[in-house]
């Protein structure tokens, strides 16, 4: 197993390098000269020798790849410079906001998993008409934009019923509405996949044999189908987590949840490049780790793969 993890990490190195290159290149190729922008932000009318001095200070006079490796050397130590907007280090900014975003994304993922398993297995096992109805609900939930759903939920639960509040302090009860908003849409999308998987397994001969043996629907679903679809579902959950990391931006801005979404929207408005770059790197890393865990789960859940890796 350790060997598998090491091999998987080694295989991921080029991808990680490529990711860092993308994150660097986006800034380097972005329109607008960062030096001019910084000078303008300080309210200085630049002279050519000032520009040259600042370019030398930031190493901007060096060639592209030399700058990339300089940046990479600092990035692996999580040094992303200081935020242009607030003057604090980018790492400090990220560390303030990251826990809230992770809490939201993880609780939304748990909710989505519960919703998807319920919707998907019910739709697959129900009769023709109930199944069609459940699939209709699923496709409707997939289609409702999360920002509109959030506004509707606020209208119902905050303005009409008064069960929740809008300006929270980041406590656990304030997490419920944003997490529900996110998990409904993602849960429905995953539910569609659960349904498809169960359906394709139900077309296999081993299910026919199980039916012939006289097993009931629940026994077949849990004993025979669930182990077979666990691996693909783990991969889908990891991908969904990536979607949730992006989706938090939308929901956080509506519910005032103090996560990275607020930070990145402000950074985009103020063109705070170091923050955007660090955000991209961090989200990429978190998503990468999630995919790695999913890959491990796939190997662990498949006896054939497990045996192959333990034999080596």
């Amino acid at each position: 197993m350790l060997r598998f993890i090491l091999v998987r990490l080694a295989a991921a190195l080029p991808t990680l390098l490529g990711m860092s290159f993308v994150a660097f290149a986006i800034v380097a190729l972005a329109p607008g000269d960062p030096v001019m922008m910084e000078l303008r932000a300080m309210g200085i009318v630049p002279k050519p020798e000032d520009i040259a001095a600042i370019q030398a200070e930031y190493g901007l006079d060096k060639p592209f790849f030399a700058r990339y490796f300089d940046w990479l050397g600092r990035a692996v130590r999580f040094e992303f410079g200081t935020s242009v907007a607030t003057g604090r280090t980018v790492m400090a900014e990220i560390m303030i906001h990251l826990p809230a975003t992770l809490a939201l994304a993880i609780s939304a993922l748990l909710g989505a998993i519960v919703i998807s398993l319920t919707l998907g297995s019910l739709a697959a096992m129900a009769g023709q008409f109930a199944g069609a109805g459940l699939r209709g609900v699923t496709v409707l939930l997939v289609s409702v934009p999360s920002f509109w759903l959030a506004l509707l939920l606020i209208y119902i639960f905050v303005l009409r019923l008064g069960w929740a509040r809008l300006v929270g302090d980041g406590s656990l009860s304030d997490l419920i509405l944003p997490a529900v908003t996110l998990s409904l849409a993602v849960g429905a999308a995953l539910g569609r996949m659960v349904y498809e998987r169960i359906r394709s397994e139900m077309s296999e001969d081993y299910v026919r044999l199980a039916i012939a043996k006289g097993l009931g629907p629940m026994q077949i679903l849990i004993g025979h189908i669930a182990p077979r679809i666990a691996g693909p579902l783990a991969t889908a959950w990891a991908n969904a987590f990536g979607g949730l990391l992006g989706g938090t931006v939308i929901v956080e801005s509506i519910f005032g949840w103090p996560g990275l979404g607020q930070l990145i929207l402000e950074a985009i408005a103020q063109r705070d490049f170091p923050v955007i770059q660090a955000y991209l790197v961090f989200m990429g890393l978190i998503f990468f780790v999630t995919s790695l865990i999913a890959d491990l789960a796939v190997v662990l859940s498949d006896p054939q793969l497990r045996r192959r890796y333990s034999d080596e």
Partner: protein
Amino acid sequence: MSNQTLRIPALRILPRLTWLTRTGRHPIGLALGIMLLVGFALIGLLPALLDLPAPEHMDLLARLSPPSAAHPLGTDHLGRDVLARLIGAVPVSLGAALSAMVAILAISLPWGVIAALAGGRTDAVMMRLADIIMAFPMLVLALAIIGFMGASLEASILGVAAAWWPSNARLVRALVLSASHRDFVRAAYLSGASRMRVVLRHVLPQILPPLAVIISLETASVLLALSSLSFLGIGAQPPTPEWGAMLNEARPFFAQAPHMLIAPGLAVTFAVLAFNLVGEGLQSVLDKREPYRW
């Protein structure tokens, strides 16, 4: 093996209704989706049919007014007619989604086809490049690209296209791979058909139906992403009428004028729903498997 013989007839309820399953699993959804799309296309192409004020026309005396005879869906915070803006937004919102989709396909189709047919090292390098882009959460990458280009509708289209193409290229590659391993494709090669002819005559026709499903479902997700970006204020900029942007403008007037929230949200939902229904409908028409039941 005929799929009908494998069922267990004794336990089948309402046997007379099986013709429904045989003519496609839910043709109602597909028909509904196509009707919605045609409806949107008509509204988008023929705005002059309805006698409405211009989407930018402001009537400052009638701000935030609820639905009335003069303004069927009410007015917004600047006294603009919500219905007129809603309809004015059809070409913007759907046009943005379609142009993003065209950009995605323009990259992902050749990328996937070439990778699948070239195989070997070319395939490995091309897929590794796609993997690098896919290693970022899609909306996060789109946000970053918009961040560096500056907020505009064009930037959001580019950002979404840049973040969405790799997954599409992967799907295209998988489709082409499975299509080109069929016996009749090999037979065409062996009988001396050129590579171009094999691709155009034997491989492409096979992948078109599943590709239609993918395109339809992807358009739904692209439309959702673009309207989310506009809602966040980093897509379409005011005063452009766009559904997500309209909802963003409506947020401060949430309690006073809920009518501003209902219509644009429903418009996005129905447009996304239309593409999803068409995609799922096509998928179930193409799906020939028959699950075993009790």
